[in-house]
Protein backbone atom coordinates (compact mmCIF):
# COMPACT_ATOMS: atom_id res chain seq x y z
CA UNK A 1 0.00 0.00 0.00
CA UNK A 2 2.91 2.33 0.75
CA UNK A 3 4.12 1.91 -2.84
CA UNK A 4 0.66 2.77 -4.17
CA UNK A 5 0.20 5.87 -2.01
CA UNK A 6 3.75 7.22 -2.39
CA UNK A 7 3.81 6.75 -6.16
CA UNK A 8 0.37 8.37 -6.42
CA UNK A 9 1.53 11.37 -4.36
CA UNK A 10 4.69 11.75 -6.49
CA UNK A 11 2.76 11.49 -9.78
CA UNK A 12 0.28 14.10 -8.55
CA UNK A 13 3.05 16.41 -7.36
CA UNK A 14 4.82 16.38 -10.72
CA UNK A 15 1.59 17.60 -12.35
CA UNK A 16 0.04 14.56 -14.00
CA UNK A 17 -3.75 14.65 -14.33
CA UNK A 18 -5.40 12.86 -11.38
CA UNK A 19 -6.77 10.05 -13.58
CA UNK A 20 -3.35 9.26 -15.09
CA UNK A 21 -1.68 9.46 -11.66
CA UNK A 22 -4.17 6.89 -10.30
CA UNK A 23 -3.66 4.59 -13.28
CA UNK A 24 0.13 4.97 -13.00
CA UNK A 25 0.18 4.14 -9.27
CA UNK A 26 -2.10 1.12 -9.81
CA UNK A 27 0.06 -0.13 -12.71
CA UNK A 28 3.18 0.20 -10.57
CA UNK A 29 1.54 -1.79 -7.77
CA UNK A 30 0.27 -4.64 -9.98
CA UNK A 31 3.64 -4.75 -11.78
CA UNK A 32 5.43 -5.01 -8.44
CA UNK A 33 3.06 -7.74 -7.19
CA UNK A 34 3.18 -9.68 -10.48
CA UNK A 35 -0.55 -9.20 -11.19
CA UNK A 36 -1.45 -8.97 -14.94
CA UNK A 37 -1.75 -5.38 -16.28
CA UNK A 38 -5.10 -6.25 -17.87
CA UNK A 39 -6.60 -6.31 -14.35
CA UNK A 40 -6.10 -2.55 -14.10
CA UNK A 41 -7.61 -2.04 -17.58
CA UNK A 42 -10.57 -4.26 -16.70
CA UNK A 43 -11.22 -2.39 -13.44
CA UNK A 44 -10.96 1.02 -15.15
CA UNK A 45 -13.42 0.16 -17.90
CA UNK A 46 -15.94 -1.47 -15.55
CA UNK A 47 -15.57 1.56 -13.25
CA UNK A 48 -17.37 3.70 -15.80
CA UNK A 49 -20.02 1.17 -16.85
CA UNK A 50 -22.63 2.20 -14.34
CA UNK A 51 -26.17 3.41 -15.07
CA UNK A 52 -26.45 5.75 -12.03
CA UNK A 53 -23.39 7.69 -13.23
CA UNK A 54 -25.38 8.68 -16.33
CA UNK A 55 -27.03 11.31 -14.16
CA UNK A 56 -23.77 13.31 -14.36
CA UNK A 57 -23.78 14.11 -18.11
CA UNK A 58 -27.53 14.68 -18.07
CA UNK A 59 -27.59 17.06 -15.08
CA UNK A 60 -24.55 18.88 -16.55
CA UNK A 61 -26.38 19.13 -19.87
CA UNK A 62 -29.52 20.49 -18.17
CA UNK A 63 -27.47 23.18 -16.38
CA UNK A 64 -25.55 24.16 -19.52
CA UNK A 65 -28.72 24.42 -21.63
CA UNK A 66 -30.25 26.70 -18.98
CA UNK A 67 -27.10 28.84 -18.80
CA UNK A 68 -26.92 29.18 -22.59
CA UNK A 69 -30.54 30.33 -22.54
CA UNK A 70 -29.39 33.41 -20.61
CA UNK A 71 -30.90 32.25 -17.36
CA UNK A 72 -28.34 33.99 -15.15
CA UNK A 73 -29.57 37.46 -16.24
CA UNK A 74 -33.17 36.49 -15.45
CA UNK A 75 -32.23 35.01 -12.07
CA UNK A 76 -30.11 37.99 -11.10
CA UNK A 77 -32.93 40.32 -12.25
CA UNK A 78 -35.29 38.44 -9.96
CA UNK A 79 -32.91 38.47 -6.97
CA UNK A 80 -32.12 42.17 -7.49
CA UNK A 81 -35.84 42.94 -7.28
CA UNK A 82 -35.95 40.78 -4.14
CA UNK A 83 -32.95 41.98 -2.08
CA UNK A 84 -31.47 44.90 -4.05
CA UNK A 85 -33.05 47.49 -1.75
CA UNK A 86 -30.98 46.35 1.28
CA UNK A 87 -27.71 48.19 1.97
CA UNK A 88 -25.02 46.42 -0.05
CA UNK A 89 -27.84 45.16 -2.27
CA UNK A 90 -25.65 44.19 -5.20
CA UNK A 91 -23.58 41.82 -3.07
CA UNK A 92 -26.79 40.36 -1.60
CA UNK A 93 -28.09 39.93 -5.14
CA UNK A 94 -25.00 37.91 -6.06
CA UNK A 95 -25.42 35.61 -3.05
CA UNK A 96 -29.18 35.02 -3.40
CA UNK A 97 -28.70 34.65 -7.16
CA UNK A 98 -26.16 31.93 -6.50
CA UNK A 99 -28.59 30.07 -4.25
CA UNK A 100 -30.94 29.83 -7.24
CA UNK A 101 -28.13 29.24 -9.76
CA UNK A 102 -26.94 26.34 -7.60
CA UNK A 103 -30.40 24.84 -8.05
CA UNK A 104 -29.80 24.69 -11.79
CA UNK A 105 -26.12 24.10 -12.40
CA UNK A 106 -24.14 21.53 -10.47
CA UNK A 107 -20.65 23.02 -10.60
CA UNK A 108 -19.12 25.63 -8.32
CA UNK A 109 -16.42 26.68 -10.82
CA UNK A 110 -19.03 27.33 -13.55
CA UNK A 111 -21.18 29.29 -11.07
CA UNK A 112 -18.16 31.29 -9.90
CA UNK A 113 -17.13 32.21 -13.46
CA UNK A 114 -20.71 33.20 -14.39
CA UNK A 115 -21.24 35.31 -11.24
CA UNK A 116 -17.79 36.90 -11.42
CA UNK A 117 -18.26 38.03 -15.04
CA UNK A 118 -21.59 39.68 -14.21
CA UNK A 119 -20.92 41.07 -10.74
CA UNK A 120 -17.26 41.97 -10.17
CA UNK A 121 -17.25 44.85 -12.72
CA UNK A 122 -20.61 46.12 -11.37
CA UNK A 123 -19.50 45.86 -7.72
CA UNK A 124 -16.22 47.62 -8.51
CA UNK A 125 -18.04 50.43 -10.34
CA UNK A 126 -20.52 50.91 -7.51
CA UNK A 127 -17.79 51.44 -4.91
CA UNK A 128 -17.70 48.00 -3.27
CA UNK A 129 -14.16 47.35 -4.50
CA UNK A 130 -13.15 44.69 -7.01
CA UNK A 131 -11.39 42.53 -4.41
CA UNK A 132 -14.52 42.47 -2.20
CA UNK A 133 -16.56 41.64 -5.32
CA UNK A 134 -14.24 38.78 -6.21
CA UNK A 135 -14.37 37.46 -2.63
CA UNK A 136 -18.20 37.52 -2.59
CA UNK A 137 -18.40 35.79 -5.99
CA UNK A 138 -15.90 33.10 -4.91
CA UNK A 139 -17.59 32.55 -1.53
CA UNK A 140 -21.14 32.25 -2.82
CA UNK A 141 -20.07 29.78 -5.52
CA UNK A 142 -19.48 27.26 -2.70
CA UNK A 143 -23.25 26.78 -2.69
CA UNK A 144 -23.16 25.05 -6.11
CA UNK A 145 -22.32 21.52 -4.94
CA UNK A 146 -24.49 21.75 -1.78
CA UNK A 147 -27.82 22.82 -3.26
CA UNK A 148 -29.21 20.17 -5.64
CA UNK A 149 -28.61 19.16 -8.37
CA UNK A 150 -24.95 18.51 -7.66
CA UNK A 151 -22.47 16.45 -9.63
CA UNK A 152 -20.41 15.72 -6.51
CA UNK A 153 -23.56 14.40 -4.82
CA UNK A 154 -24.14 12.00 -7.72
CA UNK A 155 -20.60 10.66 -7.29
CA UNK A 156 -20.88 10.41 -3.48
CA UNK A 157 -24.30 8.69 -3.59
CA UNK A 158 -22.88 6.18 -6.07
CA UNK A 159 -19.79 5.56 -3.94
CA UNK A 160 -21.66 5.30 -0.63
CA UNK A 161 -24.54 3.35 -2.19
CA UNK A 162 -27.19 5.68 -0.76
CA UNK A 163 -30.26 7.27 -2.33
CA UNK A 164 -29.39 10.29 -4.48
CA UNK A 165 -32.86 11.68 -3.76
CA UNK A 166 -32.16 11.64 0.00
CA UNK A 167 -28.82 13.36 -0.56
CA UNK A 168 -30.38 16.02 -2.81
CA UNK A 169 -33.08 16.78 -0.22
CA UNK A 170 -30.41 16.74 2.51
CA UNK A 171 -28.49 19.53 0.76
CA UNK A 172 -31.37 22.04 0.72
CA UNK A 173 -31.32 23.29 4.35
CA UNK A 174 -27.47 23.27 4.68
CA UNK A 175 -27.25 25.27 1.42
CA UNK A 176 -29.78 27.79 2.73
CA UNK A 177 -27.95 28.00 6.07
CA UNK A 178 -24.65 28.74 4.30
CA UNK A 179 -26.39 31.32 2.11
CA UNK A 180 -28.00 32.96 5.15
CA UNK A 181 -24.67 33.06 7.01
CA UNK A 182 -23.03 34.82 4.05
CA UNK A 183 -25.95 37.25 3.72
CA UNK A 184 -25.71 38.24 7.41
CA UNK A 185 -21.96 38.78 7.10
CA UNK A 186 -22.45 40.84 3.93
CA UNK A 187 -25.11 42.95 5.69
CA UNK A 188 -22.64 43.61 8.54
CA UNK A 189 -19.80 44.54 6.14
CA UNK A 190 -22.17 46.70 4.07
CA UNK A 191 -23.28 48.57 7.18
CA UNK A 192 -19.68 49.02 8.38
CA UNK A 193 -18.35 50.22 5.01
CA UNK A 194 -21.52 52.15 4.11
CA UNK A 195 -22.07 50.36 0.80
CA UNK A 196 -24.79 51.88 -1.40
CA UNK A 197 -28.42 50.78 -1.59
CA UNK A 198 -29.85 49.72 -4.94
CA UNK A 199 -33.30 50.61 -6.28
CA UNK A 200 -36.20 50.87 -3.79
CA UNK A 201 -38.28 47.76 -3.28
CA UNK A 202 -41.38 47.49 -5.49
CA UNK A 203 -43.87 44.61 -5.50
CA UNK A 204 -44.65 45.24 -9.18
CA UNK A 205 -40.97 44.84 -10.13
CA UNK A 206 -40.66 41.69 -8.04
CA UNK A 207 -43.77 40.23 -9.68
CA UNK A 208 -42.54 40.99 -13.21
CA UNK A 209 -39.01 39.65 -12.53
CA UNK A 210 -40.47 36.52 -10.90
CA UNK A 211 -42.56 35.93 -14.02
CA UNK A 212 -39.43 36.22 -16.19
CA UNK A 213 -37.45 33.77 -14.04
CA UNK A 214 -40.29 31.40 -13.17
CA UNK A 215 -39.41 28.68 -15.70
CA UNK A 216 -35.85 28.50 -14.38
CA UNK A 217 -37.01 28.62 -10.76
CA UNK A 218 -39.23 25.63 -11.46
CA UNK A 219 -36.29 23.37 -12.40
CA UNK A 220 -35.18 22.49 -8.83
CA UNK A 221 -38.85 21.86 -8.00
CA UNK A 222 -39.06 19.46 -10.96
CA UNK A 223 -35.91 17.60 -9.88
CA UNK A 224 -36.76 17.35 -6.17
CA UNK A 225 -40.40 16.60 -7.00
CA UNK A 226 -39.24 13.76 -9.25
CA UNK A 227 -37.33 12.25 -6.35
CA UNK A 228 -40.31 12.83 -4.02
CA UNK A 229 -42.57 10.73 -6.28
CA UNK A 230 -40.12 7.89 -5.76
CA UNK A 231 -40.85 6.11 -9.04
CA UNK A 232 -38.17 7.68 -11.25
CA UNK A 233 -34.46 6.81 -11.13
CA UNK A 234 -31.90 9.63 -10.75
CA UNK A 235 -30.83 9.15 -14.37
CA UNK A 236 -34.41 9.44 -15.60
CA UNK A 237 -34.94 12.63 -13.58
CA UNK A 238 -31.70 14.04 -15.01
CA UNK A 239 -32.90 13.15 -18.53
CA UNK A 240 -36.24 14.88 -17.94
CA UNK A 241 -34.41 17.93 -16.51
CA UNK A 242 -32.26 18.12 -19.67
CA UNK A 243 -35.38 17.87 -21.85
CA UNK A 244 -37.12 20.56 -19.76
CA UNK A 245 -34.11 22.90 -20.14
CA UNK A 246 -34.10 22.35 -23.91
CA UNK A 247 -37.82 23.12 -24.22
CA UNK A 248 -37.51 26.21 -21.99
CA UNK A 249 -34.49 27.51 -23.95
CA UNK A 250 -35.76 26.82 -27.47
CA UNK A 251 -39.54 27.13 -27.22
CA UNK A 252 -40.33 29.34 -24.21
CA UNK A 253 -37.41 31.80 -23.84
CA UNK A 254 -36.45 31.46 -27.52
CA UNK A 255 -32.91 32.44 -26.58
CA UNK A 256 -31.42 29.06 -27.43
CA UNK A 257 -30.90 28.14 -31.08
CA UNK A 258 -30.72 24.54 -32.24
CA UNK A 259 -27.32 25.48 -33.69
CA UNK A 260 -26.02 26.02 -30.11
CA UNK A 261 -26.95 22.49 -29.04
CA UNK A 262 -23.99 20.56 -30.60
CA UNK A 263 -21.51 22.93 -28.92
CA UNK A 264 -23.25 22.44 -25.55
CA UNK A 265 -23.35 18.66 -26.02
CA UNK A 266 -19.61 18.62 -26.78
CA UNK A 267 -18.72 20.83 -23.82
CA UNK A 268 -20.81 18.87 -21.31
CA UNK A 269 -19.52 15.56 -22.70
CA UNK A 270 -15.94 16.72 -22.11
CA UNK A 271 -16.75 18.00 -18.60
CA UNK A 272 -18.37 14.64 -17.81
CA UNK A 273 -15.53 12.65 -19.36
CA UNK A 274 -12.95 14.39 -17.19
CA UNK A 275 -14.87 13.52 -13.99
CA UNK A 276 -15.82 9.99 -15.03
CA UNK A 277 -12.27 9.20 -16.15
CA UNK A 278 -11.17 9.93 -12.58
CA UNK A 279 -14.04 7.80 -11.24
CA UNK A 280 -12.97 4.99 -13.60
CA UNK A 281 -9.27 5.29 -12.73
CA UNK A 282 -10.19 5.18 -9.03
CA UNK A 283 -11.70 1.73 -9.47
CA UNK A 284 -8.39 -0.27 -9.54
CA UNK A 285 -6.96 2.17 -6.99
CA UNK A 286 -9.77 1.50 -4.49
CA UNK A 287 -9.59 -2.22 -5.24
CA UNK A 288 -5.90 -2.24 -4.27
CA UNK A 289 -6.63 -0.21 -1.11
CA UNK A 290 -9.30 -2.82 -0.32
CA UNK A 291 -7.05 -5.86 -0.77
CA UNK A 292 -4.37 -4.09 1.27
CA UNK A 293 -7.03 -3.62 4.00
CA UNK A 294 -6.72 0.17 4.17
CA UNK A 295 -10.30 0.67 5.53
CA UNK A 296 -9.69 -1.84 8.34
CA UNK A 297 -6.36 -0.22 9.16
CA UNK A 298 -7.96 3.23 9.37
CA UNK A 299 -10.82 1.88 11.51
CA UNK A 300 -8.35 0.28 13.94
CA UNK A 301 -6.38 3.51 14.28
CA UNK A 302 -9.51 5.57 14.89
CA UNK A 303 -11.04 3.06 17.32
CA UNK A 304 -7.82 3.13 19.31
CA UNK A 305 -7.93 6.95 19.34
CA UNK A 306 -11.56 7.37 20.46
CA UNK A 307 -14.97 5.73 20.74
CA UNK A 308 -17.00 8.92 20.41
CA UNK A 309 -18.60 9.75 17.03
CA UNK A 310 -18.37 13.51 17.67
CA UNK A 311 -14.57 13.23 18.07
CA UNK A 312 -14.38 11.18 14.85
CA UNK A 313 -16.37 13.88 13.05
CA UNK A 314 -14.07 16.56 14.46
CA UNK A 315 -10.98 14.63 13.35
CA UNK A 316 -12.45 14.06 9.89
CA UNK A 317 -13.39 17.73 9.56
CA UNK A 318 -9.86 18.85 10.44
CA UNK A 319 -8.28 16.27 8.10
CA UNK A 320 -10.65 17.17 5.23
CA UNK A 321 -10.04 20.88 5.78
CA UNK A 322 -6.27 20.39 5.56
CA UNK A 323 -6.56 18.09 2.53
CA UNK A 324 -8.90 20.59 0.89
CA UNK A 325 -6.15 23.20 0.99
CA UNK A 326 -3.93 21.05 -1.21
CA UNK A 327 -6.09 18.75 -3.29
CA UNK A 328 -8.95 18.92 -5.77
CA UNK A 329 -12.42 18.13 -4.39
CA UNK A 330 -13.15 15.22 -6.71
CA UNK A 331 -9.79 13.56 -5.96
CA UNK A 332 -10.30 13.73 -2.18
CA UNK A 333 -13.78 12.33 -2.50
CA UNK A 334 -12.92 9.49 -4.82
CA UNK A 335 -9.93 8.33 -2.78
CA UNK A 336 -11.35 8.80 0.72
CA UNK A 337 -15.01 7.81 0.56
CA UNK A 338 -14.45 4.04 -0.02
CA UNK A 339 -11.98 3.99 2.90
CA UNK A 340 -14.21 6.05 5.18
CA UNK A 341 -17.50 4.20 4.68
CA UNK A 342 -16.59 1.25 6.98
CA UNK A 343 -15.36 3.71 9.63
CA UNK A 344 -18.60 5.70 9.44
CA UNK A 345 -20.66 2.52 9.70
CA UNK A 346 -18.61 1.41 12.69
CA UNK A 347 -19.37 4.66 14.52
CA UNK A 348 -23.04 4.69 13.37
CA UNK A 349 -22.60 8.01 11.55
CA UNK A 350 -25.36 8.50 8.98
CA UNK A 351 -23.93 8.37 5.45
CA UNK A 352 -26.33 11.05 4.14
CA UNK A 353 -25.38 13.38 7.00
CA UNK A 354 -21.69 12.73 6.46
CA UNK A 355 -22.14 13.31 2.71
CA UNK A 356 -23.24 16.88 3.44
CA UNK A 357 -20.41 17.41 5.96
CA UNK A 358 -17.91 16.11 3.38
CA UNK A 359 -19.27 18.28 0.57
CA UNK A 360 -19.28 21.44 2.71
CA UNK A 361 -15.70 20.69 3.74
CA UNK A 362 -14.63 20.17 0.14
CA UNK A 363 -16.29 23.34 -1.09
CA UNK A 364 -14.64 25.33 1.71
CA UNK A 365 -11.35 23.82 0.46
CA UNK A 366 -12.05 25.50 -2.90
CA UNK A 367 -11.80 28.84 -1.09
CA UNK A 368 -8.49 28.21 0.66
CA UNK A 369 -5.05 28.74 -0.87
CA UNK A 370 -2.87 27.24 -2.31
CA UNK A 371 -5.42 25.14 -4.32
CA UNK A 372 -8.45 27.41 -3.98
CA UNK A 373 -9.87 27.14 -7.50
CA UNK A 374 -12.67 29.59 -6.77
CA UNK A 375 -10.15 32.20 -5.61
CA UNK A 376 -8.14 31.76 -8.82
CA UNK A 377 -11.20 32.02 -11.05
CA UNK A 378 -12.66 35.08 -9.29
CA UNK A 379 -9.33 36.92 -9.01
CA UNK A 380 -8.49 36.25 -12.67
CA UNK A 381 -11.86 37.34 -14.01
CA UNK A 382 -11.95 40.34 -11.66
CA UNK A 383 -8.31 41.22 -12.51
CA UNK A 384 -7.47 41.57 -8.82
CA UNK A 385 -4.47 40.31 -6.89
CA UNK A 386 -4.91 36.94 -5.25
CA UNK A 387 -3.67 38.31 -1.90
CA UNK A 388 -6.38 41.01 -1.88
CA UNK A 389 -9.10 38.45 -2.58
CA UNK A 390 -7.75 36.13 0.14
CA UNK A 391 -7.86 39.01 2.65
CA UNK A 392 -11.48 39.80 1.76
CA UNK A 393 -12.56 36.17 1.70
CA UNK A 394 -11.32 35.36 5.25
CA UNK A 395 -14.54 36.57 7.02
CA UNK A 396 -16.59 34.46 4.59
CA UNK A 397 -14.37 31.47 5.33
CA UNK A 398 -14.98 31.97 9.06
CA UNK A 399 -18.78 32.03 8.69
CA UNK A 400 -18.68 29.01 6.39
CA UNK A 401 -16.61 27.10 8.97
CA UNK A 402 -19.18 28.09 11.62
CA UNK A 403 -21.95 26.80 9.34
CA UNK A 404 -19.96 23.58 8.85
CA UNK A 405 -19.72 23.15 12.64
CA UNK A 406 -23.49 23.53 12.97
CA UNK A 407 -24.06 21.05 10.11
CA UNK A 408 -21.63 18.57 11.64
CA UNK A 409 -23.16 18.54 15.10
CA UNK A 410 -26.80 19.14 14.22
CA UNK A 411 -27.53 16.20 11.88
CA UNK A 412 -31.20 17.22 11.89
CA UNK A 413 -30.26 20.05 9.47
CA UNK A 414 -29.36 17.47 6.84
CA UNK A 415 -31.68 14.61 7.76
CA UNK A 416 -34.99 16.35 8.40
CA UNK A 417 -36.05 16.98 4.78
CA UNK A 418 -35.08 13.51 3.48
CA UNK A 419 -37.21 12.09 6.33
CA UNK A 420 -40.18 14.32 5.52
CA UNK A 421 -40.08 13.64 1.77
CA UNK A 422 -39.35 9.92 1.89
Amino acid at each position, binding site marked *: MTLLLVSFAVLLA*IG*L*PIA*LAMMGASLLFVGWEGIPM*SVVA*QRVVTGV*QSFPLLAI*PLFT*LAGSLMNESGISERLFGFTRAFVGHIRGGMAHTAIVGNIFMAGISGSSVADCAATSRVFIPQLAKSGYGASFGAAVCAACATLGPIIPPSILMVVYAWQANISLGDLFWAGVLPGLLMGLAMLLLTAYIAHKRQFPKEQAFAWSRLASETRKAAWALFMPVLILGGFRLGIFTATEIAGVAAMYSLIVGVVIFRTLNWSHVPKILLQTAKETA*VILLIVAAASPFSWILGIEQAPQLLSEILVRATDKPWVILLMLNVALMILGCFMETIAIMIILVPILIPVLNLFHIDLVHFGIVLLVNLTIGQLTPPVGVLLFVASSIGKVGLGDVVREVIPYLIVLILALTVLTYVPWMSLWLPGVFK
Partner: protein
Amino acid sequence: MGDFRKIFGRLDDVIGKFEDITVIVIHGLIAALVILAVVLRYVFNNPLTWGEELIVGLLTWMVFLGAAAAVRSQMHIRIDVMAPVFRMPKFCWLNTVTLVIGIAIMVTMIWGCYEQVLQELVVESPMLRVSKAWFVAAMPVGLLLMLVHALRIWMDQGAAPVFRGETEALVMKEGGVQ
Protein backbone atom coordinates in the same frame (compact mmCIF):
# COMPACT_ATOMS: atom_id res chain seq x y z
CA MET B 1 10.89 17.46 -39.34
CA GLY B 2 8.85 20.54 -40.26
CA ASP B 3 6.92 18.55 -42.88
CA PHE B 4 6.26 15.71 -40.45
CA ARG B 5 4.99 18.18 -37.89
CA LYS B 6 2.66 19.73 -40.44
CA ILE B 7 1.31 16.36 -41.60
CA PHE B 8 0.93 15.14 -38.01
CA GLY B 9 -0.84 18.39 -37.10
CA ARG B 10 -3.27 17.98 -40.02
CA LEU B 11 -3.93 14.37 -39.09
CA ASP B 12 -4.59 15.42 -35.50
CA ASP B 13 -7.02 18.12 -36.70
CA VAL B 14 -8.96 15.57 -38.76
CA ILE B 15 -9.02 13.13 -35.84
CA GLY B 16 -10.11 15.96 -33.53
CA LYS B 17 -13.05 16.89 -35.80
CA PHE B 18 -14.14 13.28 -36.11
CA GLU B 19 -13.80 12.87 -32.35
CA ASP B 20 -15.92 15.97 -31.64
CA ILE B 21 -18.68 14.89 -34.02
CA THR B 22 -18.73 11.38 -32.55
CA VAL B 23 -18.88 12.70 -28.98
CA ILE B 24 -21.75 15.08 -29.89
CA VAL B 25 -23.71 12.29 -31.59
CA ILE B 26 -23.14 9.87 -28.68
CA HIS B 27 -24.14 12.43 -26.04
CA GLY B 28 -27.25 13.36 -28.05
CA LEU B 29 -28.12 9.67 -28.43
CA ILE B 30 -27.70 9.03 -24.70
CA ALA B 31 -30.04 11.92 -23.82
CA ALA B 32 -32.59 10.83 -26.46
CA LEU B 33 -32.51 7.18 -25.35
CA VAL B 34 -32.98 8.09 -21.68
CA ILE B 35 -36.01 10.24 -22.59
CA LEU B 36 -37.35 7.47 -24.86
CA ALA B 37 -36.92 4.94 -22.04
CA VAL B 38 -38.86 7.23 -19.66
CA VAL B 39 -41.72 7.68 -22.18
CA LEU B 40 -41.89 3.95 -23.01
CA ARG B 41 -41.75 2.91 -19.37
CA TYR B 42 -44.17 5.39 -17.81
CA VAL B 43 -46.48 6.32 -20.69
CA PHE B 44 -46.70 3.05 -22.66
CA ASN B 45 -45.78 0.70 -19.79
CA ASN B 46 -43.37 -1.01 -22.18
CA PRO B 47 -39.79 -0.69 -20.87
CA LEU B 48 -36.86 -0.57 -23.27
CA THR B 49 -35.21 -3.84 -22.21
CA TRP B 50 -32.01 -3.41 -24.20
CA GLY B 51 -31.85 0.33 -23.60
CA GLU B 52 -29.84 0.36 -20.38
CA GLU B 53 -27.09 -1.83 -21.82
CA LEU B 54 -26.82 0.27 -24.98
CA ILE B 55 -26.81 3.54 -23.01
CA VAL B 56 -24.05 2.31 -20.67
CA GLY B 57 -22.03 1.18 -23.71
CA LEU B 58 -22.48 4.60 -25.30
CA LEU B 59 -21.48 6.26 -22.03
CA THR B 60 -18.24 4.24 -22.02
CA TRP B 61 -17.39 5.50 -25.52
CA MET B 62 -18.38 9.06 -24.61
CA VAL B 63 -16.13 9.06 -21.56
CA PHE B 64 -13.01 7.83 -23.33
CA LEU B 65 -13.49 9.85 -26.53
CA GLY B 66 -14.48 12.87 -24.42
CA ALA B 67 -11.34 12.41 -22.33
CA ALA B 68 -9.29 12.54 -25.54
CA ALA B 69 -11.12 15.68 -26.68
CA ALA B 70 -10.50 17.18 -23.21
CA VAL B 71 -6.73 16.91 -23.77
CA ARG B 72 -7.10 19.26 -26.76
CA SER B 73 -9.18 21.68 -24.68
CA GLN B 74 -6.89 21.48 -21.62
CA MET B 75 -9.69 20.38 -19.34
CA HIS B 76 -8.16 17.52 -17.35
CA ILE B 77 -8.00 18.03 -13.61
CA ARG B 78 -4.62 18.01 -11.90
CA ILE B 79 -3.26 19.32 -8.62
CA ASP B 80 -1.86 22.64 -9.73
CA VAL B 81 -0.22 23.66 -6.47
CA MET B 82 3.17 23.11 -8.16
CA ALA B 83 2.21 24.92 -11.39
CA PRO B 84 4.05 28.17 -10.52
CA VAL B 85 7.23 26.17 -9.81
CA PHE B 86 6.93 24.40 -13.16
CA ARG B 87 6.77 27.76 -14.92
CA MET B 88 10.15 28.82 -13.48
CA PRO B 89 12.90 28.54 -16.16
CA LYS B 90 15.05 26.55 -13.68
CA PHE B 91 12.43 23.80 -13.40
CA CYS B 92 10.98 23.80 -16.92
CA TRP B 93 12.53 20.40 -17.62
CA LEU B 94 10.12 18.90 -15.07
CA ASN B 95 7.28 19.43 -17.57
CA THR B 96 9.05 17.11 -20.01
CA VAL B 97 9.60 14.50 -17.28
CA THR B 98 5.89 14.65 -16.38
CA LEU B 99 4.88 14.31 -20.01
CA VAL B 100 7.18 11.35 -20.64
CA ILE B 101 5.81 9.56 -17.55
CA GLY B 102 2.27 10.35 -18.69
CA ILE B 103 2.98 8.90 -22.13
CA ALA B 104 4.51 5.77 -20.54
CA ILE B 105 1.36 5.29 -18.44
CA MET B 106 -0.90 5.70 -21.48
CA VAL B 107 1.14 3.22 -23.56
CA THR B 108 1.15 0.64 -20.72
CA MET B 109 -2.59 1.06 -20.26
CA ILE B 110 -3.20 0.63 -24.01
CA TRP B 111 -1.26 -2.64 -23.84
CA GLY B 112 -3.30 -3.79 -20.82
CA CYS B 113 -6.51 -2.82 -22.63
CA TYR B 114 -5.47 -4.75 -25.74
CA GLU B 115 -5.27 -7.93 -23.64
CA GLN B 116 -8.62 -7.07 -22.07
CA VAL B 117 -10.27 -6.57 -25.50
CA LEU B 118 -8.95 -9.97 -26.66
CA GLN B 119 -10.43 -11.63 -23.56
CA GLU B 120 -13.83 -9.97 -24.09
CA LEU B 121 -14.05 -10.85 -27.81
CA VAL B 122 -15.80 -14.13 -27.08
CA VAL B 123 -18.05 -12.80 -24.28
CA GLU B 124 -21.56 -11.78 -25.36
CA SER B 125 -23.52 -8.97 -23.68
CA PRO B 126 -26.73 -10.32 -22.07
CA MET B 127 -29.35 -8.11 -23.80
CA LEU B 128 -27.86 -6.86 -27.05
CA ARG B 129 -26.12 -10.19 -27.76
CA VAL B 130 -23.02 -8.50 -29.18
CA SER B 131 -19.39 -9.05 -28.21
CA LYS B 132 -18.45 -7.12 -25.06
CA ALA B 133 -15.24 -6.16 -26.84
CA TRP B 134 -17.28 -3.43 -28.58
CA PHE B 135 -17.70 -1.68 -25.23
CA VAL B 136 -14.24 -2.41 -23.82
CA ALA B 137 -12.51 -1.17 -27.00
CA ALA B 138 -13.53 2.38 -26.09
CA MET B 139 -10.68 2.60 -23.60
CA PRO B 140 -7.67 1.75 -25.80
CA VAL B 141 -9.11 3.90 -28.61
CA GLY B 142 -9.62 6.84 -26.23
CA LEU B 143 -6.17 6.46 -24.69
CA LEU B 144 -4.55 6.21 -28.13
CA LEU B 145 -6.28 9.43 -29.18
CA MET B 146 -5.19 11.11 -25.93
CA LEU B 147 -1.64 10.07 -26.77
CA VAL B 148 -1.86 11.49 -30.31
CA HIS B 149 -3.20 14.83 -29.04
CA ALA B 150 -0.55 14.99 -26.30
CA LEU B 151 2.21 14.42 -28.87
CA ARG B 152 0.78 17.09 -31.16
CA ILE B 153 0.63 19.69 -28.36
CA TRP B 154 4.18 18.72 -27.32
CA MET B 155 5.46 19.24 -30.87
CA ASP B 156 3.63 22.54 -31.39
CA GLN B 157 3.75 24.21 -27.98
CA GLY B 158 6.19 22.28 -25.82
CA ALA B 159 5.58 20.01 -22.83
CA ALA B 160 4.14 22.56 -20.38
CA PRO B 161 0.60 22.98 -21.81
CA VAL B 162 -0.08 19.26 -22.47
CA PHE B 163 -1.60 18.45 -19.07
CA ARG B 164 -2.59 21.99 -18.11
CA GLY B 165 -5.90 22.00 -16.21
CA GLU B 166 -9.07 24.00 -16.86
CA THR B 167 -8.55 26.44 -13.99
CA GLU B 168 -4.91 27.04 -14.96
CA ALA B 169 -5.94 27.61 -18.59
CA LEU B 170 -8.75 29.97 -17.53
CA VAL B 171 -6.47 31.89 -15.14
CA MET B 172 -3.77 32.24 -17.84
CA LYS B 173 -6.36 33.33 -20.43
CA GLU B 174 -7.70 36.00 -18.08
CA GLY B 175 -4.15 37.11 -17.30
CA GLY B 176 -4.43 36.25 -13.59
CA VAL B 177 -1.87 34.96 -11.14
CA GLN B 178 -1.77 31.49 -9.64
